[in-house]
């Protein structure tokens, strides 16, 4: 090969290099704190504070991890987190899919009004509804219960909106074919629409799981103790009991909190591939 390059080729190579540089920068910004949390959780207490910074834990220790368990009722928090996240995910995915289906495919009076309402509720920040929600839930006697934590968080505006838009992007002909084939609404959803929607549905599920797993403000207001509080509240508790100087166990708790989500993400992300409508329609 000769070394001569067309100018276009050189500039495309340059821009590619620029792209990678940008990518690298973003990865550093995201990954560095995570790496820092991980190594610090494996360090001995004095090593966390030494300057210059040590990039590898030396000596390596898992003491912080055992300290997590002894400091707070970690397994209780974990159980609560799982209960809250699982319930909310199931509720939100089911409600989101059903409402999106209705908004995308069923003709009923006031449909666009409902949609407008859903989109409108997306624009109201949570913080605004917290106070009125709190008053209502307290009045119902739901404080410090799972019901009190879960019910107010079970709204699904985002999921409805996401799934509806996806449903509308499906080939119209296939939906009509199913209509002609006498498929009822549930069968249409289950056998025709959802099989073409897994990637979007999985993305929606994943976002919901991450979101609910990380819920902090509302459970903090609702829960009084480890009987219903989820992990993020527990972590804050851990920080309190350890005092402001002992970061090791807190960071170890953080790692343990992230781990389940990371595993779920890794398990689900390979299903988020496109191309499920291949061969369905042509032209």
């Amino acid at each position, binding site marked *: 090969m000769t070394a001569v390059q067309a100018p276009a080729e050189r500039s495309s190579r340059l821009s590619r290099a620029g792209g990678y540089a940008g990518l690298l920068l973003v990865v550093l910004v995201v990954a560095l704190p995570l790496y820092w949390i991980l190594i610090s959780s494996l360090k001995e207490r004095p090593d966390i504070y030494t300057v210059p910074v040590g990039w590898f834990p030396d000596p390596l220790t898992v003491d912080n991890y055992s300290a997590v368990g002894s400091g707070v009722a970690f397994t209780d928090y974990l159980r609560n987190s799982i209960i809250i996240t699982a319930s909310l995910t199931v509720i939100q995915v089911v409600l989101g899919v059903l409402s999106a289906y209705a908004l995308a495919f069923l003709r009923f009076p006031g449909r666009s009004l409902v949609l407008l309402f859903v989109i409108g509720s997306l624009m109201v920040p949570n913080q605004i509804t917290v106070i009125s929600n709190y008053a209502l839930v307290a009045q119902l006697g739901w404080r410090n219960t799972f019901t009190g934590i879960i019910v107010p968080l079970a709204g699904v505006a985002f999921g409805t909106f996401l799934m509806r838009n996806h449903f509308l992007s499906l080939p119209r*002909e296939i939906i009509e*074919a199913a209509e*002609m*084939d006498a498929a009822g609404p549930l069968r249409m959803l289950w*056998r025709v629409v959802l099989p*073409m929607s897994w990637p979007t549905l999985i993305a929606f599920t994943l976002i919901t799981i991450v979101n609910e797993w990380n819920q902090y403000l509302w459970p903090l207001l609702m829960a009084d103790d480890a009987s219903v509080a989820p992990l993020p509240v527990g972590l804050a508790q851990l920080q309190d009991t350890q005092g402001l100087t002992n970061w090791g166990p807190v960071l170890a708790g953080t790692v343990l909190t992230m781990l389940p989500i990371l595993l779920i993400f890794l398990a689900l992300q390979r299903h988020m591939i496109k191309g*499920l409508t291949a*061969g*369905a329609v042509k032209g």
Partner: protein
Amino acid sequence: MAAVTFEGATRTFPQSDRPAVDALDLGIGDGEFMVVVGPSGCGKSTSLRMLAGLEPVSSGRVLIDGVDVTGHRPRDRDVAMVFQGYALYPSMTAGENMAFALRNLGVGADEIRTRVAEAARILQLEELLDRKPAKLSGGQRQRVAMGRAIVRDPKVFCMDEPLSNLDAKLRVSTRAEIAALQKRLGTTTVYVTHDQTEAMTMGDRVVVLRDGRLQQIGTPAELYERPVNTFVAGFIGSPSINLLDRVPVRDGRAVVAGSLRIALPAAGAGLASVTVGVRPEGVDVAGSDPGAGDRLTARVLRVERTGAELFALVEPLGLTDGVGHRGDHLVVRLDKRLGVHEGMELTLRVHLDEALVFDPEGIAVR
């Protein structure tokens, strides 16, 4: 099996001031193969979808077997549709695609198996029943889509340009297969296409639409030989008919040129000028005799050979003053053995009995 009737069926889309289909009156006999043709956007699909129940009817009625189905859901009409893009369910195998409707209708498993097997045999899909659509070729998908319609044994088949995604060769063979299949099943069929060849070769009768309005219904031969207006004349036949406008009428004859005079039918008595249509295949090269008012001289501008046929694009000479032709030339089909070449001057013989006469508005004079 059933007869289908459109009674003033109209569809006006929201935010549209003009109906996409305007007061369509159309009767389709039991077991008939009716082809709907017309240029793009003329309302063919909309008409078909009104029959299938996929498009609401703004005014008028649609009847199947004498029953007014205008307000019925698609599933209650017992109509099967073959879509242009096939619309197969991507997550189901070919067999499941075909069985889906039967399952929804609560047909027993044994019955479903028998009917799918039978349809697969007819369409030669037996080996492919376990494949998903993504692993089928275009022609195979088309057959699965057909299979999905025929397993239901519906009253009416609706087909919306089912061949337009196939390559030219496959289209010709599939065309014949569909027509034969329909004859064999005897199911009333409404078939939409923009391809006039498909219309002519497949249909028992053909209906021509233009801008949402019905132009003519008739057998392919009727449409070809006796089009009601210049639009139908121009749409049916390939290459298109040659139209000569503003031909003056003298002594009951349209005088295209001194040597070409076409007798007007009685209905054309009072007309001062007419439009004359001459099909490319309604013309021969003349012998040396003087002819009987059926001669036209022309210069060859270009010669197009398709192998089997020869078309000469010619410029007519000696036209009567004021006569104009649409397009920059006339097209004539000539004997390919004649050795016609560019620049040549020809004397053509026009078959007077095949020439068509239209009034200045374009309506046929008969």
